[in-house]
């Protein structure tokens, strides 16, 4: 059993009407997907991210205003979960509603255990 970070990329843009029937149905599918993870004891946490952000980089600690990367690569949220192995984590990711969008992507990454 390991911990995995799912990074949601791309997907809906800022112009979505959050009160439309379509959007509500979309959010309902998020709930069904996550409730299933919760039921199996695999859900840890998940949050969406706001569009704007900043980037700190280099020894000079230069600050750049976001959003970063090309539209399709931008991280829009994350989910932490437990899975038996990488394949199962990928399997879980395939159920994610962000993939309903043409540009949606889920990056699946395993949490590194710190060797102390």
């Amino acid at each position: 059993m390991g911990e995995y970070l799912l990074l949601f990329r791309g997907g809906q843009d800022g112009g979505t009407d959050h009160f439309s029937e379509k959007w509500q149905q979309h959010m309902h599918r998020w709930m069904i997907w996550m409730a299933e993870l919760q039921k199996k004891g695999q859900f840890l946490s998940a949050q969406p991210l706001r569009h704007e952000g900043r980037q700190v980089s280099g020894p000079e600690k230069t600050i750049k205003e976001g959003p970063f990367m090309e539209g399709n690569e931008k991280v829009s949220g994350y989910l932490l979960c437990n899975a038996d192995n990488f394949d199962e984590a990928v399997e879980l990711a395939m159920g994610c509603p962000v993939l309903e969008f043409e540009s949606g992507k889920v990056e699946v990454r395993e949490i590194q255990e710190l060797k102390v």
Partner: protein
Amino acid sequence: MKEYLLLLRAGKPASTKTEAENKAELQAWGSFMGNLQKNGQITGGLPLVSGGKTVSAAKISGEPVNSPKEGIIGGYLIIKAKSLEEAVEIAKACPHIENEGNIEVREIGVMPAM
């Protein structure tokens, strides 16, 4: 207090550094995290294993997303701060920057109530 996700990208891998450098970095991390903990500003954060996969509707690629400019995400932190400015200040103090990495600071969003 708001919540922020810090995405830690790029940076020198431990295998390319001397043992002394790695030890010093680990100590810097210890005091950085210890400080956040003391202020009640840390809610989560872990480094990531280097490989990964990316799932999209069409295919599964055997790689994590790699931006030519910013690099691959190697870890994350979830912190609490009063503003984006404060969150950026915290990011600036993160040892990951010393390690030639960059950090994307993003506020945890609010889904509009239905």
